[in-house]
């Protein structure tokens, strides 16, 4: 393309980055929110009770078993999710046997009050944090496969951008700490470099693991050419084996108390980190009970699971035998999802996710900053392409966060009885985003930046206030009780609001200093154009 290899890679990095920058930003932001999707969902369902830490796990297991025996005796699968740091509620789920011609049976999901053992009043219909998380790989308003391919294309270009970036950035190590806080091009270049280099292992990991998430979707041609349909089923079994399947014996038997089994697991694990319990065929002789603790390994760890039979006797179940490559893929996917992360590591994931989003955004801004001096000099105003990029930058990098803020507000403001309420929350998100994408077209760039940043600051600081006005689970209640799960969300919103205010303040400062300079420069430029006209006349 260009004279040297490095120059070609730089060219490729610029254009590959520009093509996907806004979708990548969308994916980074929704994906980062996805690391906290359970916490977000809990905030979006304020009908749920506050945590009550004094209830023991034994007591909760006892209550859940009683509840399930009463309400779900026909189900073929039970699951009890104990409260943990992410989702402070006791939940039970059950699955009915699949009806004729259906792939799977009806699934029900309830939240129990851990002191009474009764289900919590009807929750409002909401997409919760999961809808945000789902958009990260599934986008919205389009068929599944189309979305996967768009996401895959963007991820592939991201991989190329990361590799080319490493290739043409000459001094990765000597510039490791270099961040010259200067205005304009050098400042943005340094920001982009620092954000990319600091979290480079994460960027590589997240892109590559994102691609292998849909390995057989993207590499479908090679997969189909290598293996026939029946071989493909065998492939999944070999590479990602499942635990041994139990068969229903159709002989009724009441399940032994879960509390006794729980006491046995305490002896086995020597720690109280039980997370959930799954029971297959609860009212059958062949029932199998699976106690799982919080993950202690990135890949599968056999000792995290303990199995019991219907009499409450310990069962030995052989470990799942992954192939080496299967284990590698499993490890990458688990690194991408961060399910194993405890709360501190989860915050680190949030940090690096935001670094990724900021890297993408600074790349987009860098593109316009570099071209700005030349474009400003054009007699008929800037090119269409340049203005479009600038508009999309403003509309995405500030507009998308605002739209997410609107989504949270919609959760509190839409009437609870509204039909398709969960869908309307999402519609609110996309309508507001669309408006904010169009808006910068009608304003000078710098004013559009300032106005949208101000709007973002207002919306995010308004969210805790709105929560205070519409629910009884606001900061004045959650903080004294110490329910950090609820309080954390409101506090995070205030922090985001403050960051946007700071950004708005910085932009405002710049406008003030520019206006000061402009009165001088405009006088100079007027004089120079007059001179130019004179010269032309003379010629």
């Amino acid at each position, binding site marked *: 393309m260009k004279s040297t290899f490095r120059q*070609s890679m730089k060219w490729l990095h610029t254009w590959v980055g520009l093509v996907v920058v806004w979708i990548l930003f969308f994916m980074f932001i929704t994906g980062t929110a996805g690391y906290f999707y359970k916490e977000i969902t809990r905030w979006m369902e304020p009908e749920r009770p506050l945590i009550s830490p004094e209830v023991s796990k034994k007591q909760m297991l006892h209550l859940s078993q009683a509840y399930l025996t009463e309400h779900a005796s026909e189900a073929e699968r039970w699951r009890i999710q104990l409260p943990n740091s992410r989702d402070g509620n006791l939940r039970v789920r059950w699955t009915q046997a699949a009806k004729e011609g259906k792939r799977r049976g009806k699934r029900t999901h309830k939240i129990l009050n851990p002191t009474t053992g009764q289900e919590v009043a009807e929750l409002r219909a909401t997409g919760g944090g999961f809808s945000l998380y789902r958009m990260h790989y599934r986008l919205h308003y389009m068929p599944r496969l189309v979305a996967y391919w768009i996401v895959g294309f963007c991820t592939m270009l991201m991989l190329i951008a990361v590799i080319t970036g490493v290739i043409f950035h000459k001094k990765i190590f000597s510039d490791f700490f270099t961040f010259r806080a200067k205005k304009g091009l050098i400042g943005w270049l340094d920001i982009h470099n620092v954000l990319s280099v600091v979290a480079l292992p994460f960027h590589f990991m997240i892109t590559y693991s994102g691609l292998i998430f849909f390995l057989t979707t993207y590499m479908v041609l*090679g997969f189909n050419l290598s293996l026939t349909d029946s071989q493909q089923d065998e*492939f999944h079994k070999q590479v990602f084996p499942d635990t041994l399947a139990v068969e229903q014996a159709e002989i009724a038997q009441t399940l032994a108390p879960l509390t006794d089994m729980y006491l046995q697991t305490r002896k086995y694990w020597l720690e109280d980190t039980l997370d959930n319990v799954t029971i297959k065929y609860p009212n059958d002789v062949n029932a199998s009970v699976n106690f799982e603790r919080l993950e202690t390994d990135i890949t599968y760890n056999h000792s995290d699971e303990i199995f019991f039979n219907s009499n409450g006797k310990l069962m030995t179940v052989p470990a799942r035998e992954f192939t080496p490559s299967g284990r590698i893929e499993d490890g990458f996917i688990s690194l991408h999802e961060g399910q194993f992360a405890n709360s501190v590591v989860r915050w680190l994931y949030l940090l690096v996710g935001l670094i990724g989003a900021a890297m993408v955004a600074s790349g987009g801004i860098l593109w316009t900053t570099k071209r700005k001096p030349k474009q400003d000099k054009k007699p008929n105003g800037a090119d269409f392409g340049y203005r479009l990029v600038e508009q999309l930058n403003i509309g995405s990098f500030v507009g998308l966060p605002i739209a997410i803020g609107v989504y949270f507000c919609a959760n509190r403001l839409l009437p609870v009885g509204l039909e398709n309420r969960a869908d309307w929350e999402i519609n609110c998100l996309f309508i507001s985003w669309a408006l904010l994408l169009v808006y910068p077209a009608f304003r000078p760039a710098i004013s559009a930046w300032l106005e949208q940043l101000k709007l973002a600051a207002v919306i995010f600081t308004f969210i805790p206030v709105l929560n205070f006005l519409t629910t009884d689970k606001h900061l004045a209640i959650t903080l004294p009780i110490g329910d950090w799960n609820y309080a954390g969300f409101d506090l995070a919103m205030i922090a985001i609001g403050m960051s946007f205010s700071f950004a708005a303040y910085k932009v405002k400062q710049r406008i003030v200093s520019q206006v000061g300079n402009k009165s001088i420069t405009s006088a100079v430029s007027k004089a120079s154009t007059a001179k130019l006209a004179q010269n032309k006349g003379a010629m």
Partner: protein
Amino acid sequence: MSYFSDKINFISPRWLVFSRVVAAIFAGYALATTSTLFFGQLLLTSVGKYEAVHIGMLLSFPIYACAAMWVFSVASAQKAWIGLIKLNVILMIFTWLLVQANS
């Protein structure tokens, strides 16, 4: 007619870039596919059929990325196309030879 032939000037730099983009996307994907087939056969005897295919698929993404980068680094679009097609054919021949050897 002449208007169109003026418009569609195939040696204009824009068309050459477009040609490279097509080469990177489609010929690159073809290379990722043939490399999957190749590794699937190459590792067949050492790690077994399913794992060989799996390894081939895991490796195909870096190969795709490198192919795309290579397309934009060579001197001309023509060279990029010929190079990728050559590589594809060579990999296919090797795969065919391996199939013969393995069966």
